[in-house]
């Protein structure tokens, strides 16, 4: 891809992402304020519920849970929304030639925008209530990039598969809650028997949630081999996803 083409590709993605964001807040009374209100309300609800109900013994369960949920919500909301997207945008795909991955990436980018705002709000809260290590904070951009790549890769392959097999959309809706419980968002891994660890090795979200907690709350990683397997699987999914999309996207029109 030459420079001019890349520039166009980037502009196109950004324009679609801003369309996503703008269209979402048009004609709401609070407008873009919702971007901040939403995560704050979420924090309040979680904080309120878990004052009375603490299933896991960790210091500051509220922050423990919220930081994990932030990562998970970005992942699951993006994928659930992106999976049927090629089908929803069929009228566009049938009628114009443009980089089709932008339909998926624009959803990821617009969610990323919200995700980053939420992280900042969380950081402010953490600053006010406890201490933060600078070393951990340096890790945050790495987490965000990794999470974005992983989410894009999954979204792209699910959405592409969904063009031919509309079952994929239902499958994703069913899998996401299970995946949530298979990711240590509400609990810590050391509560579970060691013979379940293979599952966490297969799930790259494990490392991301744990890294987030390490970065913000200084909770040590349970097992550093999760990082290696998580990274490996991310790269694998990314390659498969891009290969499949490249092969299939020229025939989308036939199936929509």
């Amino acid at each position, binding site marked *: 891809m030459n420079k001019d083409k890349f520039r166009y590709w980037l502009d196109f993605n950004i*324009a679609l992402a801003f369309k996503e964001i703008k269209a979402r807040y048009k004609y709401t009374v609070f407008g873009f304020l919702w971007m901040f209100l939403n995560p704050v309300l979420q924090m309040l609800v979680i904080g309120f519920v878990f004052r009375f109900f603490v299933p896991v013994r960790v210091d500051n369960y509220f922050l423990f849970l919220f930081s994990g949920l932030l990562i998970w919500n970005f992942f699951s909301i993006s994928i659930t929304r992106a999976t049927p997207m090629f089908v929803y945008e069929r009228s566009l795909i049938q009628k114009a030639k443009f980089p089709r991955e932008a339909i998926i990436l624009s959803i990821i980018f617009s969610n990323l925008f919200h995700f980053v705002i939420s992280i900042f709000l969380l950081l402010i809260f953490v600053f006010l209530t406890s201490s933060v290590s600078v070393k951990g904070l340096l890790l945050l951009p790495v987490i965000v990039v990794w999470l974005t790549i992983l989410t894009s890769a999954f979204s792209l392959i699910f959405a592409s598969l969904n063009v031919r097999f509309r079952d994929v959309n239902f499958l994703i809706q069913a899998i996401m809650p299970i995946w949530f419980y298979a990711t240590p968002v509400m609990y810590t891994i050391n509560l579970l028997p060691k013979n379940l660890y293979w599952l966490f090795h297969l799930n790259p979200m494990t490392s991301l949630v744990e890294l987030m907690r390490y970065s913000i709350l200084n909770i040590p990683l349970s097992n550093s081999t999760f990082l290696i397997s998580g990274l490996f699987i991310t790269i694998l999914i990314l390659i498969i996803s891009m290969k499949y999309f490249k092969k299939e996207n020229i025939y989308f029109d036939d199936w929509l």
Partner: protein
Amino acid sequence: MKKTRKNTVILAKNISKSYLLRTERPTAIEKIFSKKKTNRRFALKNININIKQGERVGVIGNNGSGKTTLLKILAGITQPTSGKVLVRGKVVSIIDITAGFHLDLNGIENIFLNGLIIGLRKQEINQRLDKIIKFIDIGDYINAPLYTYSAGMILRVGFSVAIFSNPDILLIDESFAVGDEIFRKKAIQKFEEFAEQQKTLVVVSHWPGFIKKNCNRVIHLKKGKIVHDGGLDLLDLYFTMPQC
């Protein structure tokens, strides 16, 4: 970027396009468990076309004769099942000028969105924005969300973006008899400028008046095959012929 007049800009070599004929889409389960013979239908069969720079081609034919499929293949929206297509130059295709619109966004935002979708660079849109707005000519409505527009106004926006995209090759599918008489005149004038600038035009249309005025070559498709390819005299033949 000066080209000689007789350059071939679109070359279709023996292209065919077949679709699976199906009443239901195959699901993953069905695909694994049944090996049903699939019924393939040809939308296009062994099409050979050579279009030179500056030619203005009108494609005619009954519904289902493969006109839009041909246009989509030339535009790169879909791939032919077999055969080869070579297209030289910047192509802008308008199969449905309102496809990329978002009704909640305003006119200007939609100009950018639609412009990017048909392949314009962002700075190109910026440069032409004033001209486009002037051409659309709907006053303050340009800052209002699209859902407040009338159907004709929406078409005007789409058409104007397309016309200012400045392509080497313009592919158009029907439905551009847009707007009122004043706007149509402006549109026709733009097409004439196109012709003067030696731009290539491929139009699918049922409107003989438009083809007569703007084209110098007619291709008649029937059931996926080219039955006639020649001058405008074909037009009289086709439109006076009883349709069967």
